[in-house]
């Protein structure tokens, strides 16, 4: 705006100068018209005087010769009246009518022409009244003319004729000179104004050029700056990209480590579950082996006894009988036959349990069907429960309240991961040394299936409640939790177009509620 302000000032000066040139021209034209009038009037003044003076002399002559005087007198009257009116108009300012035209005259301002007019007035005023009185005489009656007055006026006119003529002549000349001077002066102003215009124009042009140059330079600098900034931004972007990549990698790593953690948890749970049946089945096999040794030994002894009896070798019969009896001692004492039977029975139970575990594990991981399908939420909960059993067993009793056939379209393996996470959390919420209770319930309500997992553990403080689904939020010590478990659970439920929510009270426990659409509108990914 400031830059434009300067230009506006230039423009105003420029236009003012142009306007002044026009004004001067107009003024000049007016002035020269007036001057022409003045010169015209001055000329007429001289003519009028000459006419009056000549005719006055004629009148005197005619009177003396007795010839007609009327025409001369009339001419004298007209001349002297005209003369008077012009002199008066020049001296006092006023309008003079000549040849039917009005001329407005003013007293000259220039002192030189003014002096001339003053001189004329001085010369004229002493005789003005008498002269005009004379002019008012009746021309038809020559006798009415005051001879004395006429004589004096003629004399006066003759004596003053030269002076008056000179003066009026000088006045005309002076008017001409003044006119010249003024024209010269005005032309000078015009030229000066024109020069001024040119100067202002040039100044403006230079100023504009400079400011354009400046703008240009500024523009170039700005452009450079923009380029620099762009480069900087590009670099920054690279950095941000790199950081983002890092972050993504870290996140991926964390997600991976969370996966590994839950895998580890799963393996730990499974290993514990497997170890127990494996332990006693192995023990039982060793016991069976031992028992088998004892029993087969007894059989051998009895076989020997039988053979000796059949062949009638009775020499050692007593010793062999004793041996056979001794070999039966342990078998009878410990009821080894029945017990071994039981041992086999129990071993088979153990094997069944292992089989069941493997089936359950398959059910949990669903590795063979990592696809979108209809699955029973109850089965998922049970398989997660089996995995989490080693964590839950010594801490809480589990109560189930399942709605039958809780079938939902989902990724079963993903949901099982969520269930495992929630179950582990529930178990961990129960303080050491206390016997807790974990309740699982499922329900189908129209289009929605609901799973509730609640515990009576220590609960979640209010200030944590809105953060628990955020990634990396954890209250566990560093290194013991990635803080991703629940955020992953949240993501998984979100992916199923469902909702996961929590209610909790410190000291009373927490309830996690999962709502899932029974049918997915569009295929979840």
């Amino acid at each position: 705006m400031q830059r434009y302000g300067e230009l506006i000032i230039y423009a105003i000066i420029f236009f003012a100068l142009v306007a002044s040139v026009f004004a001067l021209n107009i003024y000049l034209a007016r002035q020269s018209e007036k001057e022409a009038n003045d010169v015209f009037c001055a000329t007429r003044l001289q003519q009028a005087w000459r006419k009056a003076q000549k005719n006055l002399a004629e009148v005197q002559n005619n009177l003396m010769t007795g010839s007609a005087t009327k025409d001369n007198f009339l001419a004298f009257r007209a001349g002297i009246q005209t003369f008077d009116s012009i002199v008066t108009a020049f001296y006092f300012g006023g309008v003079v009518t000549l040849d039917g035209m009005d001329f407005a005259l003013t007293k000259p301002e220039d002192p030189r022409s003014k002096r001339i007019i003053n001189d004329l007035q001085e010369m004229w005023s002493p005789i003005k009244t008498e002269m005009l009185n004379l002019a008012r005489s009746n021309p038809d009656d020559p006798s009415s003319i005051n001879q004395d007055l006429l004589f004096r006026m003629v004399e006066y006119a003759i004596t003053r004729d030269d002076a008056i003529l000179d003066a009026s002549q000088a006045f005309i000349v002076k008017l001409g000179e003044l006119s010249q001077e003024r024209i010269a002066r005005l032309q000078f102003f015009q030229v000066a104004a024109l020069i001024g215009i040119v100067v202002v124009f040039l100044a403006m042009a230079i100023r504009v050029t400079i400011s354009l140059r400046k703008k240009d330079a500024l523009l170039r600098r700005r452009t450079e700056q923009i380029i620099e900034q762009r480069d900087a931004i590009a670099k920054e972007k690279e950095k941000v990209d790199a950081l983002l990549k890092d972050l993504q990698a870290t996140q991926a790593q964390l997600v991976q480590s969370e996966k590994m953690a839950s895998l580890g948890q799963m393996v730990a749970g499974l290993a514990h579950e497997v170890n127990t049946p494996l332990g006693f089945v192995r023990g039982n096999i060793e016991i069976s082996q031992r028992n088998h040794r004892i029993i087969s030994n007894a059989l051998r002894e009895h076989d020997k006894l039988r053979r000796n009896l059949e062949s009638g070798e009775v020499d050692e019969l007593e010793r062999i009988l004793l041996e056979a009896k001794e070999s039966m001692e342990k078998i009878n004492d410990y009821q080894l036959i029945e017990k071994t039977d039981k041992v086999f029975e129990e071993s088979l139970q153990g094997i069944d349990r292992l089989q069941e575990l493997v089936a359950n594990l398959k059910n949990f991981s669903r590795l063979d069907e990592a696809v979108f399908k209809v699955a029973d939420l109850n089965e998922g909960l049970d398989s997660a429960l089996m995995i989490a059993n080693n964590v839950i067993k010594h801490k809480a009793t589990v109560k189930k309240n399942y709605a039958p056939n809780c079938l939902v379209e989902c990724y079963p393996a993903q949901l099982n991961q969520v269930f495992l996470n929630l179950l582990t959390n529930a178990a961990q919420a129960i303080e050491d040394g206390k016997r807790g209770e974990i309740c699982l319930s499922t329900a189908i309500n129209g289009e929605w299936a609901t799973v509730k997992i609640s515990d009576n553990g220590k609960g979640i403080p209010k200030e944590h409640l809105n953060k628990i689904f955020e990634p990396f939020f954890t209250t566990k010590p560093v290194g013991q939790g990635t803080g991703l478990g629940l955020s992953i659970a949240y993501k998984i439920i979100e992916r199923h177009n469902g909702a996961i929510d929590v209610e909790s009270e410190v000291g009373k426990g927490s309830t996690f509620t999962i709502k899932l659409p029974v049918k997915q509108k569009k295929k979840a990914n």
Partner: protein
Amino acid sequence: MSKQKSQVLIVDDEPLVLSSLRNLLEFDYIVHTAESGREALKILTQFPIKVIMSDQRMPEMMGHEVLSEAKRISPATIRILLTGYSDLESIINSVNAGEIFRYISKPWKSEMILSVFKLGVQIYDRLSQFAPSPASMTSSEPTKPKVHIEVDEKSHSVLFVGYEDDEIKNLVEQIEKGYEVYKSQSIDEALRQIARKPVSVIVSNVNFGQDNALDFLNAVKSEYPEVVTVILTEVADANLAIRSINELNVFRYLIKPVSGDVFRQIIDNAVSQNQTYKEKPASNLIHAAKQIAPEVVASESQSESALRLKLRAAQLALSKAKPSGLG
């Protein structure tokens, strides 16, 4: 057979495990079984149980809690913990709380169970020979350090092995009023130090250099059975904890950081344990076990015997230099 059978107790929440173990052990022992900790403790008050073996993971009462209670009810009973999948926290808990004689991991081997029970019963019998009243045989009473520590100022010494000075600064400050404190950066240095003057308690790191801390502590223990060992480390390793009990009968397995107060308490207890070992060498379980059945106590590794040789060499060098030395 003619002798009356010893009584043992097995605790597991899994009946089939109990059944299997009973079948295994019943030829040699009168086997009591309990499906819960509560039941086990009741049996413990009713019968003279020589060996108790408990599963770690059980509902209500964890194995190490059962054994800890068992120690209170029947201190002379030899305690064995049966662990499934190694559970770090509970193992370290049990090291520090239960004075466990042995860990056995699932799935077990019958032979292992039989030999550990046999050894347990032998140690029990041997200890009761020395002390007719088993109740007085408390090998240590961690919560009540003996008063004489205060009186007998600086007659005990503590050796730190394998730490930077500043990482144990606080801990040293806590105990240096009461005890002579030595610091060794390496095992060699530590061996020389021990040869110069036997210490009461060794506080050792587990991972320094390529040397094995357990071998080192084992070597020291076999020469100075009364030395009490405390492991203080950042490494929470279940295997290491189990080995440190099974091979070394380590007094405490501490995971850094440890508060100064707790540490002083532990050292006081360790010193009092050392005093007990000196006065009644028979109360030293691992020592007793080594004497009764060296083959069952974890076999000595080559590096351990090398370390023992080093220790002996240091002793020899010292005794030559100072014939009238400490001996």
